[in-house]
């Protein structure tokens, strides 16, 4: 799903969770030793959206996050959830309505996975049956094996523990979810996997989510909006990923997003937003002589050979073709296969990668059924970049 799409969904959501937009008004946090962690922050996090806070280490992301559920108290200003001032409500009640996921899962070592997930429902006094059903539901939702429910945290892998942490935070179906570097403690492969699953989960549950991360890639990938913080707890820019890339507000933002931001922008666009070239193709039972004349007419270096279902078989280049016997079928020649398959829903960055390793100058693009839809080439992508 694209970012646009998600924003449309969250607009509908705004009606049902009207109370859960989070508004910072001139919020300052000064620690006891005089450190100003957050400085006069004005920020509105829209309901039903996933906002990511990024910035260099020590810039006050965690502090900002923890003020929302009053793990830290504000020194100045006002923090509203909907129209309620957080400082005016009871802290423990507030926290039970806000899920919180930490970098290290912080699971209770003396409770089973099921009991860990059930903590907040128990605090809220739910009945036994309702809790049991909810736990089963959550175990499924976060993609855990139900056999794990009776285990203890130390018997789980880091990635599994992190899922339990998420399930525990979601247990009482809080409208708001706070996450502090939730995927930082797991290895890159598990992280990518968790991120994907988390995105699809968010599409289903549509909560107001605030996530802290160090990883600008993660921020761009997951966030509906991204808040970039500068040192000293100041907000450098707050925008959608696409806006950040096309209209960075300052040099700091440019630096932070990084030198390869052009490439990042490619990652935000999908192939189906592009006008594909029809490309030069031939069925597998074509004979060499005819294929040769197509190529000569088009002035192309090769041709995409398709099978009966119009799935690409491989790339046939001029060098192979010109030495071949005129009457031979082209699928008897040595065709060069593609290392990647590129589909319409892939983004332009994957397309670029695939193109670089393609045997020919073009790369075929497939629809979801694997049928040939056209080709892209370097020129199309570079035109897109500028």
């Amino acid at each position, binding site marked *: 799903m694209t970012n646009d799409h998600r924003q449309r969904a969250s607009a509908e959501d705004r009606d049902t969770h009207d109370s859960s937009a989070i508004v910072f008004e001139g919020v300052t946090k000064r620690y006891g030793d005089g450190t100003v962690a957050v400085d006069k922050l004005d920020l509105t996090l829209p309901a039903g959206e996933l906002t990511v806070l990024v910035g260099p280490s020590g810039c006050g992301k965690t502090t900002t996050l923890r003020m929302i*559920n009053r*793990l830290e108290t504000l020194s100045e200003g006002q923090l509203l959830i909907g129209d309620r001032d957080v400082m005016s409500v009871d*802290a*423990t*009640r*507030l*926290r*039970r*309505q806000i899920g*919180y996921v*930490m970098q*290290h*899962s*912080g*699971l*209770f*070592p*003396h*409770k*089973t996975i099921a009991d860990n997930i059930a*903590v*907040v429902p128990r*605090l809220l006094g739910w009945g036994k049956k309702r809790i049991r059903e909810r736990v089963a539901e959550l175990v499924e939702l976060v993609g855990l094996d139900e056999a794990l429910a009776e285990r*203890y*945290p*130390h018997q789980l892998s880091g990635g599994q523990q992190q899922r339990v942490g998420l399930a*525990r935070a979601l247990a009482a179906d809080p409208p708001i979810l706070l996450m502090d570097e939730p995927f930082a403690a797991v290895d890159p492969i598990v992280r990518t996997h968790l991120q994907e699953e988390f995105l699809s989960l968010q599409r289903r549950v549509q909560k107001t989510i605030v996530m802290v991360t160090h990883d600008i890639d993660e921020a761009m990938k997951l966030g509906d909006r991204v808040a970039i913080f500068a040192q000293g707890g100041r907000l450098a820019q707050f925008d959608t990923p696409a806006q950040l890339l096309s209209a960075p507000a300052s040099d700091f933002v440019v630096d932070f997003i990084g030198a390869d931001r052009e490439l990042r922008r490619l990652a935000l666009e999908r192939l189906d937003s592009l006008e594909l070239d029809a490309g030069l193709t031939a069925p597998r039972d074509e004979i060499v002589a005819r294929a040769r004349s197509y190529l000569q007419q088009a002035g192309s270096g090769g041709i995409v050979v398709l099978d009966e279902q119009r799935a690409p078989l491989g790339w046939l280049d001029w060098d192979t073709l010109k030495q071949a016997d005129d009457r031979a079928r082209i699928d008897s020649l040595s065709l060069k296969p593609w290392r990647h398959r590129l589909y319409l829903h892939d983004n332009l960055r994957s397309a670029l990668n695939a193109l670089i390793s393609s045997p020919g100058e073009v790369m075929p693009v497939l629809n979801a059924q694997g049928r040939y839809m056209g080709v892209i080439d370097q020129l199309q992508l570079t035109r897109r970049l500028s």
Partner: protein
Amino acid sequence: MNNDVMSLLAGVIDFFSQPMNWQGPGSILAHITEHITYVVIATLIGAAIALPVGIGLGHSGRGGLLAINISNIGRAIPSFGVIILVFLLAGFGVMPVIVALVALAIPPMVTNSFVGMREVDPAVRQAAVALGMTGWQRLWQVELPIAMPLIMAGVRTSAVQVMSTATLAAYVGLGGLGRYLIDGLAVRDLAQVLVGAILVAVLAMATELLFAGLQKLITAKGLQ
């Protein structure tokens, strides 16, 4: 010398095999009962004082280091001196012994329960706050269960020390297994002293085993 040891052992066996030593007041069983009574009372009172202090300080995390240092110095309070001092002030009775043993029991329990509470992983502690638990709920549902093995280890250390120190009760005219030591010393009857030592050691080891079992029983499965 070898002969000495042999006759000493013979004396011990003789002592245990005399039916007279197993009956009525002043019998082995009576002394054991007295001894255990002192130990149980002192350990319970000590726990009632020490555990709330150690647990409370550990929970709040304030003033702990000072308390621990004071409590460690408390180990230096000579039980022998306390018994005699309270005896001079309060006169004959169980009071001097109980006071001295309680003073002895407190430090390990304070230290262990404090350390046990402090060693709860800060991430776990923080998760409990973030989930909206009140102070009491955090204490009872999260911190205490996790700290329990160390708290119990403290009670165990105290109980074993109290068990062997309760022998001093005999010096101010009370009963318990210390009678065999003090009386044996007075008449230079080493067999009798050895009988007392063996009985106390056996009781102390029984205490160790009892607590080890108890600890296993009440330690949450996820922590084992």
